[in-house]
């Protein structure tokens, strides 16, 4: 056996709250001796929970982009704006750096998150041994950048709070913003429910060694 020793092989579990390594009992529930949280060898039902959250996020991604995120009424005439039309507006106004930021944060990042999580899930279910370190890095990046997609929701809220000038100009938030926030939250939860140790599990069981 020439692979590094892993905690699960010794029946030891790392507490997900305080990081303490403790021995798992043969049966029954175990509580961490330090913080009393439930001990698990792996996040319970990681793959199925992540898929469920992923699916919910993927479904809501459609209304998030198709429904208007806000409606701008200027001097009596107004039109609803989706995320995409907001980006185009910024771009046409010469503000292409900002258009790029919003495009990356609101369109690119959520899609990349969904693709990355799907890839990680499939690779774990297929017990793939391919590039474990890179997949772990992919997971870490996915977990870190997800929250930044909320920027569009905050912009809508701020604009709605500031542009309330009666007959002159008003901005009101749209349902697309709610759907979008739901997508961000669901993908954050999905990333949190995925256990990256699964990437390394089957590799060592087969005696592979990378």
């Amino acid at each position: 056996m020439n692979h590094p020793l892993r905690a699960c092989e010794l029946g030891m579990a790392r507490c997900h709250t305080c990081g303490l390594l403790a021995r798992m009992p043969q049966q029954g529930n175990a509580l961490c001796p330090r913080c009393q949280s439930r001990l698990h060898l792996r996040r319970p039902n990681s793959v199925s929970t992540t898929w469920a959250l992923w699916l919910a996020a993927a479904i809501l991604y459609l209304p998030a982009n198709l429904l208007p995120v806000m409606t701008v009424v200027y001097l009596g005439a107004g039109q609803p704006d989706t995320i995409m039309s907001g980006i185009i507006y910024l771009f046409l106004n010469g503000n292409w750096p900002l258009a790029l930021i919003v495009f990356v944060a609101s369109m690119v990042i959520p899609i990349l998150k969904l693709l990355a999580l799907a890839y990680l899930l499939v690779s774990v279910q297929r017990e793939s041994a391919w590039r474990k370190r890179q997949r772990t890095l992919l997971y870490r990046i996915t977990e870190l950048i997800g929250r930044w997609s909320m920027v569009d929701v905050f912009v809508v809220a701020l604009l709605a709070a500031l542009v309330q000038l009666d007959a002159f100009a008003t901005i009101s938030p749209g349902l697309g913003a709610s759907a979008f926030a739901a997508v961000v939250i669901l993908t954050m939860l999905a990333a949190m429910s995925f256990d990256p140790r699964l990437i390394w599990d089957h590799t060592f069981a087969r005696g592979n060694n990378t």
Partner: protein
Amino acid sequence: MNNALQSPWVACHDCDTLYPAPSLAPGTLARCRHCGAVLARNPKGGLSRPIALHLAALILLILANAFPFLALDLQGRQQGTTLSGASLALFDAGMEWLGLVVFLTTVLLPFVYTASTLYVLIGVRQKADLPGLTRLLSWLSHLRPWGMLDVFMLGVLVSFVKLNSLANVIVGPALYAYTGLILVSAVATTSIEPERLWTALSGTARRRRSS
């Protein structure tokens, strides 16, 4: 094991590899050899530095919420907002769920997180048996990713640019406090390492039990 509260081993939280618990000099960290994850950190400055930083963050947080944040001046009509104004605008428009989410991520959770961290840090430093220390410390690591004031800062920037071409945007005192808060929070976060707090907490509990 007569000391179940400490372990001579640590397991990597990303790949589960076992390592002997590292003893680190201040300002250094230990990484997993296989996947590169951070195993343990020892931030410089012990406990005094994080306490000062989190106290500063708490004060800035209160200031950022107490005063007007941004205002729009269009042909003499002025409309301003505070930090909570963003979530209030969503409530007013009938989008209560979204208003609650924005309120939690930009007002309540940052405040609860900073105040709780300060409470735990003081409890650990004074070696006092303050109520609820363990429970709070358990919740801290779960709360942190849901405080989104840094993302909100980007939202402020985007809104500012969007509005500046249409009207006169006035910066309120709260915005300066808010900028300071983002900077202080960033440093404050790196100044603490939860696992060291747990070790210190369980050390206090052990001493209390044996005395």
